[in-house]
C-alpha cells in the first residue's frame, strides 16, 4: 500500500496549488476576511446607535444636573465650597445618592438624610450617565450580584467583621461622631447596598473589589435580605438594639405590670 501511494503523493506535489492544506488556508482566509469585515461593520453601526442614545441620555442628565445639582457641585461637576467634585464618582454613586433621596440635599445637617426620592428612575439613569461620562468610576452593579442567592453564612461573617461596628450586627444602625450615624439597613434595596459598599457614601468607607470581592458583596446582600425576610425566631425583636431596649422593656412593661398587679392584690383586701 505505501509503495503504491508514494508515487501518487509525488505526483500531487507536482500539482502544487492542489494541496489540501492550501485550500484549508484559503477558506480560512476567506472566512476571516468576510467575517471580520461583517463584524467590523456591524459593531460600528451598533456603537453608533448606543452612542446616539447615550449622547441623548447624557445630554438629558447634563440638563438635570445643571438645574438641580450644579448649585453645590458646580456646572462642570468639579465641586464648589458647598459640595464635593463628582468627577470619577461613577454611576453607582449617583444612583445611590439620588435613588435613596439623599441627593439633592435639602437641609444642611451632620449628614444627608434618606428621604422621598426626588426624580424618576429615568431621570436618575440620565444623571448617572452624565456623571459617568465625565470620568471612569464605579458602574451600576450587574444584576447577577443582586439576586440574594449567595452564601448567607459567609455574608454574615463578613458583615460582622466589616459592617457591624457602625451598622450593628442586626443592621439596626448606630451612632457616629458629631451627630452623624450609620443608618439602619432593613428594607434597603440590594442595588443600593451594593452601590454603598462600592462608593462609600458620606462617612462610609469604600469597600472596593480588592477588599471585598463582588461575590462576597453578593453574600453580604444575601445575609441582609435573609434578615429582612425572616423575622426574629424569638418573637418581637424590640428594634434589635440589644440590651438597652431589653432593659427598658423589662423595667417599663415587665416590672411595671408586676407592680400594678401587686397593687391590685393588696387593694382587694381593703
Amino acid at each position, binding site marked *: 500500500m505505501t509503495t503504491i501511494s508514494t508515487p501518487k503523493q509525488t505526483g500531487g506535489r507536482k500539482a502544487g496549488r492542489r494541496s489540501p492544506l492550501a485550500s484549508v488556508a484559503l477558506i480560512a482566509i476567506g472566512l476571516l476576511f468576510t467575517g471580520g469585515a461583517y463584524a467590523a461593520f456591524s459593531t460600528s453601526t451598533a456603537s453608533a446607535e448606543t452612542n446616539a442614545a447615550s449622547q441623548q441620555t447624557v445630554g438629558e442628565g447634563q440638563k438635570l444636573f445643571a438645574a438641580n445639582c450644579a448649585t453645590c457641585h458646580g456646572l462642570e461637576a468639579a465641586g464648589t465650597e458647598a459640595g464635593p467634585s463628582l468627577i470619577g464618582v461613577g454611576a453607582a454613586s449617583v444612583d445611590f445618592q439620588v435613588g435613596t433621596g439623599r441627593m439633592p440635599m435639602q437641609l444642611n445637617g*451632620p449628614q444627608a438624610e434618606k428621604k422621598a426620592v426626588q426624580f424618576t428612575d429615568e431621570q436618575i439613569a440620565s444623571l448617572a450617565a452624565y456623571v459617568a461620562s465625565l470620568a471612569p468610576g464605579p458602574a451600576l452593579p450587574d444584576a447577577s450580584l443582586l439576586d440574594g442567592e449567595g452564601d*448567607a*453564612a459567609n*455574608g*454574615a*461573617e463578613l458583615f*460582622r*467583621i466589616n459592617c*457591624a*461596628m*457602625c*451598622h*450593628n*450586627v*442586626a443592621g*439596626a*444602625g*448606630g*451612632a*457616629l*461622631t*458629631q*451627630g452623624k*450615624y*450609620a443608618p439602619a439597613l432593613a428594607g434597603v434595596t440590594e442595588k443600593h447596598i451594593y452601590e454603598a459598599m462600592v462608593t462609600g457614601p458620606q462617612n462610609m468607607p469604600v469597600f472596593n473589589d480588592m477588599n471585598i470581592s463582588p461575590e462576597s458583596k453578593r453574600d453580604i446582600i444575601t*445575609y441582609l435580605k*435573609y*434578615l429582612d425576610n425572616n423575622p*426574629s*425566631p*424569638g*418573637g*418581637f*425583636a*424590640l428594634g*434589635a*438594639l*440589644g*440590651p*438597652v*431596649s*431589653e*432593659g*427598658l*422593656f*423589662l*423595667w417599663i*412593661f*415587665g*416590672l411595671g*405590670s*408586676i*407592680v400594678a*398587679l*401587686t*397593687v391590685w*392584690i*393588696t387593694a382587694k*383586701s*381593703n
Partner: protein
Amino acid sequence: MSTATTTTELVETKKSGGLTGAAANYIDERTSISTAVKELGRKIFPDHWSFLLGEVALYSFVIILLSGSFLTFFFSASMTPVEYDGSYMPLKGVEMSAAMASSLDISFDIRGGLLMRQVHHWAALLFVAAIGLHMLRIYFTGAFRKPRELNWVIGFVLFILAMAEGFTGYSLPDDLLSGNGLRIIDGMVKGMPLVGTWISFLLFGGEFPGEAIVGRLYSLHILLLPAIIVALIAMHLLFVVVHKHTQYPGAGRTNQNVVGYPVLPVYAAKAGGFFFIVFGIVMLMASLFTINPIWNYGPYDPSPVSAGTQPDWYIGFADGALRLIPPGLEFVWLDRTWSFNILIPLVTLGLFILVVLIYPFIEAWVTGDKREHHILDRPRNAPTRTAIGAAGVTFYAVLWATASSDIIATHFKVTMEGVIHTMQFLAIVGPFIAFFVTKRICLALQKKDREIVLHGYESGRIVRLPGGEYIEVHQPVDEYERWKLVSYNDYKPLMIRPNSQGKITVGQKARAGMSRWFFEDRIEPVSSTELERSHSDHH
C-alpha cells in the same frame, strides 16, 4: 359490753381525723413539725403593695433555677472549636466554640429550648430589677434601722451576687456580645496597677480570650454563686421572720404589734397565687419578645465589635462610668502605664457600693438612736435621708443612662459628644440638685401635713358670723388619718458634750457636724398640746 364500747370508741376517734389527720399525726410524731406550722401559720404580715417586691425577686429566682436546670441539660461549657451544623442557616459551617454551638442548638434544635433560654434571661433581668426596687423601698421607708441593719447588708450582698450571676451567665454563650463584655472586664482588670496583668492571666488561663474562661464562669454560675445566694436568701427570710415585718404608720399600729393577716390561710394563698402571676408574666415576655439573639451576634471573634454593644441593664452603670471618663488620663510613670481612665471609675463605683452597704450604720451613728424601729417612716418624714437617696438614685441613673449614650444619640437625633458632655455635667451636679429639691419637697409636704392636722382641710364653705365676720370652715381631719400624719420620730441636732475626761474628741465633733447637717432643717410633729389648742381655737 365494755370491751365492745371501747372498740367502737377507738374506731370513732380514728374516723374523726380521717386519713389526713392520721397522716398529719404520723408526720408530727416523727418531726414535731406542728410547732413550726403553728408558729409560721399564725405569723402576721401587714398588707401593702410595696411589701411584695421582695417576693417578686424570690419568685424570679425560683423561675431562674427551674429554667436554668433545663438549660444545663443541653449546654456544653467548652471552648473547643467546632463547625456549626445546626438549623440556623446564616451560621452554617461557621467555626465557633462548643459553648456557642450548644447555645444555638438550644435555641433552634431542642424543643422548648429557645423559650427556656428566654425565660431564663428575662427572669434574670427581672430578678435584679425586683431586688433593686425592693431595696429602694427599704431605703426610703427607713426599714434598715435597728434591728434590721444586718439584713440590709445581706440583701445588698445578694444584689451584688445577683449581678455577678447575671454577668457570668451573659458570658456563657460565647457569642460576640458576651465576648465584648468579657474584653471590657479584662481591660478593667488589666488597668489595675501592678497586679492587673497577673490577675487577668490567672482568670483567663493565659492571654485573653484563651480556652478556659467559659468553663470557669460556668462553675461559678451554676455552682458557687447559686449556693451562696440560696444560703443568703434563707438567712434573709429567717431574719424577716425573727424581726417580724415592718408596717406603715396608721391607726392602731405601734412598735409593739403587727397589724395584718396571718400567713395561713390568707398569705399562703396570696403569695402562692402571686408566684404564678410572676411566672405568667415572665412566660408571656419570653414567648413574645426576643432577648439576647445570639444568632445575630454570631460567635465571638476578638476583631469585630458591634454598634450598640451594651451589657445587660444591671451592669450598665459600670459601663456608663467608663464612658463618662474624659480622655487623656493615661500616662507612663516609673516604667508602668497608669490607666486612671479605668482606675477612677473603679474606685468611684467601689466607694459608691461601700457607702450603700454601710449606710444603716452611718445613719445609726449620726442619730445615736439605739431603739428598735418597726414602724416605717414615710419618706417625707426623714427629709435628709430621702434627699440622700434621691441624690444616689440620680447618680446611679446618670451612669446607667450613659451606658446607652449611642442609642440616645441616634434615637433623639443629638450628637454623641453632646450626650456624653451633658451626662458628665449631670453626674456631678445632678445629685446636688436632686438633694436640695427633694429635701425642700419633703419639708414642704411635712408643713402641709402639719397644717392639715392643726386646721383640717379647706372645705370652701364661707360662713358669716352674727357679728358680720366671715370665716372659712375647715373640715377637721379624722382620727385615723391624723394618726398617720403625726406619728413619726423627730431628731434634734446633737449637742457637743465633753466626755468623761472633759475633752471634746474629733469623732464627737464630726458626729455633731453630721447630725446638724441631717436635722438642722426639720418640721416637728404636731404635739397633743398643739392639737388641743388648735381644736379649742376652732370650736
